[in-house]
């Protein structure tokens, strides 16, 4: 059990796009034990509104010392985060949940849409550091080029040469869905392992293609969360067997095997 509560100091706050930010924090306890796909719960204020912590994926750890979060301003909590400046402290709990499982994989493909790209960068770095797989393809999608900001470059910079893009408005890469890129770029002769995180419809499309091809697929899911530590039972999602006991995203996930969960 490596979970802990950490009073993390903000090192850097970068505005990547009008509403996407990257926050770097000193959080050695969390940084040193986090795995790709895990998340933290961030206390955005010491007042009672907003009350609950906010779940954010770990975007990257730096030298077992720093944790990086990438977030989009969508409401109260993320707006507060965006107003914070270096030197301020932020209370984090983590690392939480269980992440991606890549033991002994060969050909790996990461498929991210929107903010779902956040945890995939950590994953890509880990893959390059540990697995050195013969193939590692990254497919990124967004509504428009501006939403991707520096992310495609970030992946290429660490050596993912096969980074392909899709935008809904054709402003960058393929004009259409990122899921379309699977057929274009994954050689069906390989036994791919696909890891995906993003909007539900996107993941559903990815899962459906993987199923057809017989590829392994891991999905990172989001739900409303009150505790993040398996205490409130608020983060339930239906299992593949619809009548079975609910799965809990904060504990059984956020990363699941695609076949474990229901795709409604």
């Amino acid at each position, binding site marked *: *059990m*490596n*979970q*802990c*509560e950490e009073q993390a100091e903000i090192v850097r706050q970068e505005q990547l796009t009008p509403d996407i930010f990257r926050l770097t924090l000193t959080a050695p306890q969390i940084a040193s034990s986090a795995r790709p796909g895990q998340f933290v719960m961030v*206390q955005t204020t010491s007042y*009672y*509104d*907003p*009350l*609950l*912590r906010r779940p954010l994926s770990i975007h990257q750890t730096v030298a077992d010392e720093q944790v990086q979060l990438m977030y989009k301003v969508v409401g109260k909590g993320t707006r507060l985060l965006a107003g914070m400046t270096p030197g301020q402290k932020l*209370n984090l*709990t983590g690392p939480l949940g269980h992440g991606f499982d890549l033991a002994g994989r060969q050909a790996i493909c990461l498929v991210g849409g929107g903010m779902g790209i956040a945890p995939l960068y950590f994953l890509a770095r880990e893959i390059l550091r540990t697995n050195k797989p013969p193939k590692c393809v990254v497919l990124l999608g967004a509504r428009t080029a501006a939403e991707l900001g520096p992310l495609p470059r970030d992946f290429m910079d660490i050596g993912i040469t096969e980074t392909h893009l899709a935008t809904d408005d054709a402003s960058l890469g393929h004009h259409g869905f990122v899921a379309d890129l699977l057929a274009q770029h994954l050689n069906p002769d390989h036994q791919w392992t696909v890891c995906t995180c993003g909007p539900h419809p996107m993941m559903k499309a990815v899962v459906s293609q993987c199923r057809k091809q017989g590829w392994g697929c891991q999905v990172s899911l989001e*739900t*409303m*969360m*009150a*505790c993040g*530590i*398996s*205490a*409130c*039972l*608020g*983060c*339930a*999602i*239906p299992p593949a067997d619809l009548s079975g*006991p*609910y799965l809990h995203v904060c504990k059984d996930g956020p990363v699941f095997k695609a076949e474990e969960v229901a795709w409604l």
Partner: protein
Amino acid sequence: MSEADLRVTIGGLVFKNPVLTASGTFGYGKEFAPYVNLHHLGGVVVKGISLEPRRGNSPPRIVETAGGMLNAIGLENVGLDRFITEKMPYLLGIGTRVVVNILGDSLEEYQTLGQRLNEVEGISALEVNISCPNVKKGGVAFGTDPAMAEAVTRAVCAHTTLPVIVKLSPNVTDIAQIARAVEAGGAQGISLINTLLGMAIDVKSRRPRLANIVGGLSGPAIKPIALRMVWQVAQAVKIPVIGIGGITTTEDALEFLLAGATAIEVGTANFVNPRASQDIVEGLGRYVMENKLDGISEVIGGLILN
């Protein structure tokens, strides 16, 4: 004396301090071990247990509100058998009192739960949930009618030798009346409040934010209502009262003790600050020392009126 005396007594049991954790907000204890020294707490109240496992409600189950949250978990739990075999072994070793929260759909279920848990080692007391608003056939009827509340209390008490604490629903006109009924039924303690029935709508989709439509409101938002009810109940009954509802800080806990609560339970605050319960234990210790009190019991019911 170098350490503050925080002991309180409920149903003949001495608790090392008056800070318990509220059912459904602290899992089965283990979930908080990374954050809290469990043996520092006065006690742990576990998630409500029913005879059979329950799936709970469809998601979404929670939504944040101003200063609070709504939940419609629907009493998801592992059921009595798995609770005893899977959860109790860990709880035996946590070094503080374990209170088991129980719920049923019928008098018989409550009875059976009382009976079965009576034989389980390591349980200090039962907390009978007659109040959860989430399950249609469940708690509501028991908790809002004095006669039924008394009957369920009597049923459990008759089948267990453990101290029985009955947990009240706040969704009633006259909380003191229910409290008196429960006392007459043989309860050795009363805890309150459970959540207030509430609702939230997503304007974009025009749908309720909870699949269950309505849910239970908890958190700092409800503290004033909880405190008022605890004060009313403490005046209405002779048995000890445990205050619950929005308690987040040491000051909050002191308010409930002053209003007449012998102990308190920390609920939603555990989600916001997983160390909240322990912080309050430490805060009460400091309060007792700084005010040179003989013990925390001097605070209980110490509200000055005039």
